[in-house]
């Protein structure tokens, strides 16, 4: 999140999460490190 804002983008917001590793061989690693898919919205100010 911080790196997105540092680039100058504003109103940075995670708007959804997805369990994209569910059922894969890496599901246990994803769970261990708290890795999930996410939708993020940000904007460039006018």
């Amino acid at each position, binding site marked *: *999140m*911080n*790196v*997105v804002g*540092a*680039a*100058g*983008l504003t109103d*940075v917001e*995670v*708007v*959804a*999460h*997805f*369990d*994209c*590793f*569910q*059922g*894969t*061989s*890496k599901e246990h*690693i994803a769970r261990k*490190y*708290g*890795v*999930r*898919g*996410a*939708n*993020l*919205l*940000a*904007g*460039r*100010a*006018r």
Partner: protein
Amino acid sequence: MATSCPAGLDTRRLRDEVSFIYRRVAEDPHGDFHFHRGAHYATELLGYDATELAELPPESPASFAGVANPHAIARLQPGETVLDIGCGAGMDLLLAARRVGQSGRAIGVDMTPAMAERARASSQAMGLSNVEVRLGDALELPVDDESVDVVISNGVINLVPDKEKAYAEIFRVLKPGGRLQLGDIIVAHELSEAVRNNIDLWTG
């Protein structure tokens, strides 16, 4: 959202590894990978519209390997110019092209020639004249300054070692008032330096 590049990471090896894996996905999407691919995954776990995906050339969703759904963030509008960073075989790109219509443009950028070629072939099969696929890199986008209304990307920026540069590039190409609709992975916990230097964990 993202972890900065650790000093010890071999970024050239990472880039080569990512390119190798996604060339395999383009050429053999039904092969053995640690991540999901395909239309069924996209509809069941990410909320894509099965009817819309069925209208695309099957090769495109077959090689889809995104991790979220940028199209669910906000509806693309007719006439908008959309840039898909790491467009892969073009599933999100083709959906974008249909939504922005003939008065809009959908530009895909991918560093893997096999993926870019697959995206081009699919857009041609659909007869879409508002799609352009360019070979290129998220760290040096082949796109003019302030020329894009919406940047989309799906499961790509997490594979880029220099995220500061990647987001600076996104800022550069966005018009003032433009928006980023990003699908990517997030990590709930701070990762150790050893984990961040492990290329197998970056690429799977």
